[in-house]
């Protein structure tokens, strides 16, 4: 099957003060095929957005790739020049963001901004924009409205229209529903599914809501401290989570509570990238902690459909 996106052993580091080098992402391995959807799940600060920004090549100036490659439609983008990147952004890969109100320019109408996103020459830009607005479920008058006149859901639909009007093959949705209420979020999810069906779009869906991820995506990658700790299809993740972190995440879902239960959380907090714990990064919070977890970094173990980084399923040590 044709791979739209393939990330191989990607590592991203942060240039700190002086010569300090802080590793943000390590050994990220994901691939997305045509019309496929992959969800990146994890707490804030686990590296989901950095992964997305790496694909767009929109990392902050002080971050750089130190290993691995990113193949978009078969060609590596880690070494591309700014001009080639511009051709890629929007037409091969697009992105939508968490807070649509902040990502739309307040001084232009929605229509102007969608028109601006159109690449290449075309006579009837306005007609195409109007059609596309209709396709994402907006009325024509939205064309003439300013972002502040639109509701959050409508703003997100405008963002989707901007991102998809050039018919890209991959859409990165960075927590697109976090700022929206549940019913609006449902509408956006349905719209994305619809677009995947119609335009043969692949989607990387970034969220911290594992229930939403399971609902939306066929495959799920759970991230923790800059690594993918578990990668599997969504049923396996939901029904049979292997990694203790995934397990915790799922057991925290409110849907699993009975009335009167205390809200469950994962003890501890996401580690600071400057100061990652030795061995498995999750070990300070892990209930199944063994001696080896503190000493060694777990490598990838394949169990059924699932790839997992945990010593409970094998003694695979990560090669440095």
């Amino acid at each position: 099957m044709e791979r739209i996106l393939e990330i191989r052993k990607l590592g991203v580091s942060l240039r700190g003060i002086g010569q300090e080098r802080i590793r943000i992402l390590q050994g990220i391995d994901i691939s997305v095929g045509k019309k496929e959807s992959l969800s990146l799940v994890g707490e804030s600060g686990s590296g989901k957005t950095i992964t997305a920004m790496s694909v767009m090549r929109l990392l902050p100036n002080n971050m750089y790739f130190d290993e691995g490659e990113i193949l978009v439609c078969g060609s590596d983008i880690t070494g591309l020049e700014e001009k080639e990147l511009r051709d890629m952004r929007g037409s091969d890969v697009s992105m939508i963001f968490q807070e649509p109100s902040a990502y739309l320019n307040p001084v232009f109408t929605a229509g102007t901004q969608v028109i601006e996103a159109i690449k290449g020459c075309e006579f009837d830009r306005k007609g195409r924009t109007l059609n596309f607005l209709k396709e994402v479920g907006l009325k024509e008058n939205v064309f003439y409205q300013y972002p502040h006149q639109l509701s959050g859901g409508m703003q997100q639909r405008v963002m989707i229209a901007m991102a998809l009007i050039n018919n890209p093959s991959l859409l990165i949705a960075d927590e697109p529903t976090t700022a929206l209420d549940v019913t609006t979020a449902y509408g956006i999810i349905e719209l994305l599914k619809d677009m995947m069906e119609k335009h043969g779009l692949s989607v990387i869906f970034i969220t911290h809501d594992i229930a939403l991820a399971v609902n939306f995506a066929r495959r799920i990658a759970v991230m923790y401290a800059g690594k993918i700790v578990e990668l599997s299809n969504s049923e396996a993740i939901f029904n049979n989570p292997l990694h203790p972190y995934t397990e915790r995440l799922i057991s925290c879902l409110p849907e699993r509570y009975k009335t009167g239960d205390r809200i469950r959380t994962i003890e501890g907090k996401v580690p600071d990238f400057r100061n990652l714990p030795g061995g498995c990064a999750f070990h300070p919070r892990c209930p199944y902690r063994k001696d080896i977890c503190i000493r060694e970094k777990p490598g990838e173990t394949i169990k059924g459909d699932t790839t997992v980084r945990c010593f409970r399923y094998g003694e695979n040590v990560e090669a440095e």
Partner: protein
Amino acid sequence: MKIFLRRLKHTNKISFFSLWFLLFLYLLAVLADFIAPYPYDLQHREYALCPPILPRFFHDGRVSPGPFVYGIKVINPAFKEYAPDLSRIYPVRLFTKGPERTLMGFLKTNRYLFGVNGEGKIFLFGTDIHGRDVFSRVLYGSKISLSIGIIGVAISFILGLLVGGISGYFGGKTDTFLMRMVEIIMMFPFFYLMLALRAAFPPNLSSVQVYLLIVVILSLIGWASLARIIRGMVLSIKEEEYVLAARSLGLSSFRVITRHILPATFSYTVTALTLSVPGYILGESALSLLGLGIQEPYPSWGNMLSVTVGNLRILTTAPWMMIPGFFIFLAVIAFNFLGDGIRNVMDPRNW
């Protein structure tokens, strides 16, 4: 725009009035060829330094059928003493005929707004030492004095916005280089830099060349401080999420700067723009006053004033020669009031 005007009207009466006053001045400048009764270089030798001759309405204690002027009787040509000649009456007519002039570069007209036929003369603001009508010259001069402000501001703002935008957006070495350049320009005192630049060019240029030269000199000095402020604003605006979104759509840096970053600075820019127009008008006046600006016989408000400077006799016996200075004052103060008003209206805290 409508909302803007309404708000300006309600919050700041003076600046609203200034806006209309300035529009009126610019209208006069545009229509100078139609309104001025005489060409700017027409010399009435026999009537040099004649005091203002205003239209009258009463003759012999009776209301006349329309406004008229008396003829001018020369009492003493050496001391420039004049008196109205009550025996000669010339009615002031609207749309009088005269030699053809070109209006706004393409409209041909041989009728002027008003004038006096035959021997009679109408000098609303008197005449200068060569007997040229000061009123007509003020009108023609406003073409230069007022347009220099607008054109100069336009050039220096385009420069300032671009340099500031590029500097702030790209940062790093580009930023350092451009800002050091700005500092070099800002290091020199404004007025001496202006004089030095003017002196660097040959003095015997045609009037159009001089005009363009002055505009360029003034705007080359004016853009630096603006670029600096714009850079600061861009530094903060470029962190806005919609800039990231625009980049993620694959827009070029130039487009991101001009479409998404610079418009966000406009509330400041428009105010600064209005407030800096007077600087250009005054700059031109100062250069012309020193004889380095617009050359005779072409009038500008500055060089019309230069005749009076250092000539006490003219200053005391012909105070109407100061009228161009009064116009400079009005234009400058109106721009300042307007800028003030715009600043208040643009400031979201005052809504």
